[in-house]
């Protein structure tokens, strides 16, 4: 489809936004050495053409509203429309972040209450709503850890991360100044005290700042040894960080704090139904235990004596992670979600998420290999390795075949510890019918591959498939250039 820039026509774009008849360029108000002479080459399209452009683009995009979207690790649950409606109330959208606090008490109440709910759900003692996404939550947690150890006068340069971890974990740890050491999962896919102890002992107990875990882990399996792990690590003075991407199956069932975690981030765009927005914006609040609370980013909220809500800076705050207070309009949606469901509702979310994942796993376990097969939580990972070895058909091929059948593909090639991985997370907002459709497709593929792999491989030749990503990266074109139009 043509780019909006290629649809530009001189003089066509005259949206009725501003009436200015003064002279245009150069502007007399600008210092001479900075004055712009020529307008910026932005496109000029009429309003109707703009509408058609984005209408078409949207139709070429697949979202949860289009159909099943079992993208593992991403919790692509339904985004309730009422949450969109309440987040567009003008008394929220029009607020300026620097208004006096007495004019923003509604916003502050909402944030304060949301923080209470997140504390209750996670068992943590204090919450900061500032981080913009899960990864920024991780980063915040890591910086809090740094500040914590600095305050204690300890130098602990190493952060442990299991081999099954999401890439943001090691990246966040290292960007915050830690050295990352990997811990191997055992043959059940689990992190054990044993494995941790080996790494710790080789590096020195007092060098270990902590570990970043998600639980259930990225295989969708609950880390059974977690209590032992936290006991051991706390014993050597280290901290446990909980990557909340996988919190959905634990809602109202188990709490990171009870497992011994010291820091947790929440992905509101996963567990709490706020839209993924094609890659963001999300929100990644973090919760911490009492001893870490003084280090939280600034500002956080409290309810004053007079019942008024007010911001304050925690005593030993690491400072600020971003402008203002967090992705407020996303917080509004998550708040609305929690108020809609209540405690019993959240529990049903967890139950149905786990039910749906196990159901698919059971239906596919014979046709596909599930390397760490056991009762899963909200997701599981199968491997297409046998098809690759036997027929040269990859997880990617199967993913594309799913797309070709009108279903979004699961996450592929993650976690790294499973070859030809396909990570399937249906979420609780899908019905048995949709799961069955998906299973039938997957089962039919497995049959098709074994009957006629040649035919199956033709998915690679489908004209709309197989963008040449290697060439795209070798000769990157990352923007439109005016020259193209000539």
């Amino acid at each position, binding site marked *: 489809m043509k780019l909006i820039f290629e649809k*530009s026509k001189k003089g066509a774009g005259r949206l009725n936004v501003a009436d*200015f008849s003064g002279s245009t360029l150069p502007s007399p108000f600008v210092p001479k050495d900075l004055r712009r002479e020529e307008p910026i080459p932005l496109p000029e399209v009429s309003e109707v053409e703009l509408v058609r452009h984005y209408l078409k683009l*949207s139709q070429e995009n697949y979202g949860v509203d289009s159909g099943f979207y079992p993208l593992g690790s991403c919790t692509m649950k339904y985004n309730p429309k009422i949450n969109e409606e309440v987040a567009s109330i003008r008394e929220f959208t029009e607020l300026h972040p620097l208004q006096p606090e007495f004019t923003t008490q509604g916003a502050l109440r909402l944030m304060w209450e949301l923080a209470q709910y997140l504390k209750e759900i996670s068992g943590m003692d204090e919450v900061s709503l500032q981080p913009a996404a899960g990864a920024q939550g991780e980063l915040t947690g890591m910086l809090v850890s740094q500040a914590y150890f600095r305050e204690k006068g300890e130098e602990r340069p190493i952060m442990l991360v299991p081999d099954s971890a999401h890439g943001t974990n090691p*990246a966040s740890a290292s960007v915050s100044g830690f050295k990352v050491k990997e811990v191997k999962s055992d043959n059940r896919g689990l992190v054990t005290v044993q494995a941790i102890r080996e790494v710790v002992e080789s590096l020195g107990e007092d060098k270990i700042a902590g570990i970043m875990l998600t639980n259930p882990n990225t295989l969708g399996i609950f880390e059974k040894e977690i209590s032992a792990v936290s006991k051991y690590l706390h014993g050597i003075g280290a901290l446990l960080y909980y990557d909340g991407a996988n919190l959905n199956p634990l809602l109202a069932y188990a709490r990171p704090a009870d497992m011994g975690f010291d820091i947790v981030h929440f992905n509101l765009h996963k567990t709490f139904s706020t839209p993924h927005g094609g890659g963001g914006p999300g929100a990644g609040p973090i919760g911490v235990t009492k001893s870490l609370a003084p280090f939280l980013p600034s500002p956080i909220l409290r309810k004053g004596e007079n019942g008024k809500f007010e911001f304050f800076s925690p005593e030993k705050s690491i400072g600020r992670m971003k402008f203002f207070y967090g992705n407020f309009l996303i917080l509004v949606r998550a708040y609305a979600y929690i108020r809609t469901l209540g405690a019993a509702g959240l529990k049903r979310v967890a139950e149905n998420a786990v039910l749906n994942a196990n159901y698919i796993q059971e239906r596919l376990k014979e046709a596909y290999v599930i390397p760490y097969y056991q009762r899963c939580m909200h997701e599981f990972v199968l491997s297409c390795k046998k098809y690759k070895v036997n027929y040269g058909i990859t997880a990617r091929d199967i993913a594309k075949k799913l797309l070709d059948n009108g279903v979004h593909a699961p996450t592929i090639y993650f976690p790294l510890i499973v070859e030809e991985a396909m990570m399937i997370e249906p979420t609780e907002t899908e019905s048995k019918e949709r799961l069955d459709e998906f299973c039938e497709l997957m089962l039919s593929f497995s049959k098709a591959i074994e009957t006629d792999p040649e035919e199956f491989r033709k998915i690679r030749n489908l004209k709309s498939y197989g963008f*040449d990503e290697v060439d795209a990266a070798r000769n990157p074109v990352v923007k439109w250039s005016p020259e193209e139009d000539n």
Partner: protein
Amino acid sequence: MPYIPNTDEDRREMLAVIGVKSLEELFATIPDELKLKDELNLPAPMVESELYAHMKSIAMENVSFSGNRNFAGAGVYLHYIPAVVKELVRRGEFYTSYTPYQAEVSQGLLQAIFEYQSYICALTGMDATNASSYDGSTALVDAVVMAKNITRNSRIILLPFVHPQAVEVLQTYNIGLHLKIENIDADENGDFSIDELEGQLRGGDVAAVVLQVPNFMGFYPEGIPKIINLAHNYSALVIMSVYPFVLGSIKSPGELGVDIAVGEGQPMGIPSGFGGPLLGFIATKESYLRYLPGRIIGRAKALNGRVGYVMTLQAREQHIRREKATSSICTNQALVAIQCAIYLGAVGKDGFHKISRLCEENAHYAYQKLTQMDGINPLFQKKALFNEFALEIQGTGNVDAIYNALLVRGWLPGVKLGKFYPKYQNGLLLAFTELHSKAIIDEFCDDFEEVLRN
């Protein structure tokens, strides 16, 4: 149960397939002692109509000021957002999708972001940008990290009046970055000495000189081309943080020789939303493309020659590079970027420049009127301004009284500087947009004058 489509019947059938008797049994892998015994202590659930009423009543505990009665800026501005922007960005196919891992079913989003990148490059005069950073402050951090990695130097020099919150964020990230962050101070009138800057640069090991245009106080730092030259002479990069609409009136950062341009994209079609979600943009020269953090969308060819778009250069990112990645960003601000792109398409070349010029005109008109009043001085004299400026309200404590009196009259009269700079306790920062017509400004100034007199 809201949002859960399965029925009891479905659940029974599914449990039978799995071979367990109850939902609880599915949770058997969680050790008993970790299982929550009590129900969570959360407020009772609400049906949709109750929820709406509840949310509306919370919203009404706020006092909101529509764009034309709102003079607060300081990083977030209430420009007008055309209806077409809001309608298009709310298309379900966009907002319920995620990162376009599967390019074949995500061409809409991918092209929209490719276009966003093109817009940002056009505005900044740069060659490359990413699919968004969290906000303007983290974009500045991203730029600093880039400069560090490009130059392998470790000093960062900040010119006066970079957004104080952005500086705070940089300082926080610096817990992990271990850079030396140094400030050039401003004198009484907000100026700084270029000799001092040169002195600092001479020390060597400077990764970047950072400046903001217009700066937090709303004026253009003097001698920008000179500053850029100087930094380059000492092999330091120049990072310039910009207010998007100023780009309509000044030469682009690219043209000026800036190495990395960053900024907060919110003014371009994004609601103020109590400060979030915002939109960080970061753009640079072609040669630094691979140093950019976060997602980048690139053009690609399909088998049949069809041109499309994919996520490209992923080898930089956390999911591939893991602990060697220079940023951990994953979820970014994609939908905000698209909203910004739709906005720029909506206002177009003509509209963008009109808005840009109106911001200037309106601010200067107001500046004239306000600084003539008794009891008000410009905080800094004889500055070249864009759309924002700092005033000094004479008399200790007067600023609070006057601020509140104007609030009562339904104006949000800017932002008090005291919370950012204790030494400017009497300062007031006012921002102007295309919504502040002369008539509105006259009304505001009349009220201001009355309030001053009382």
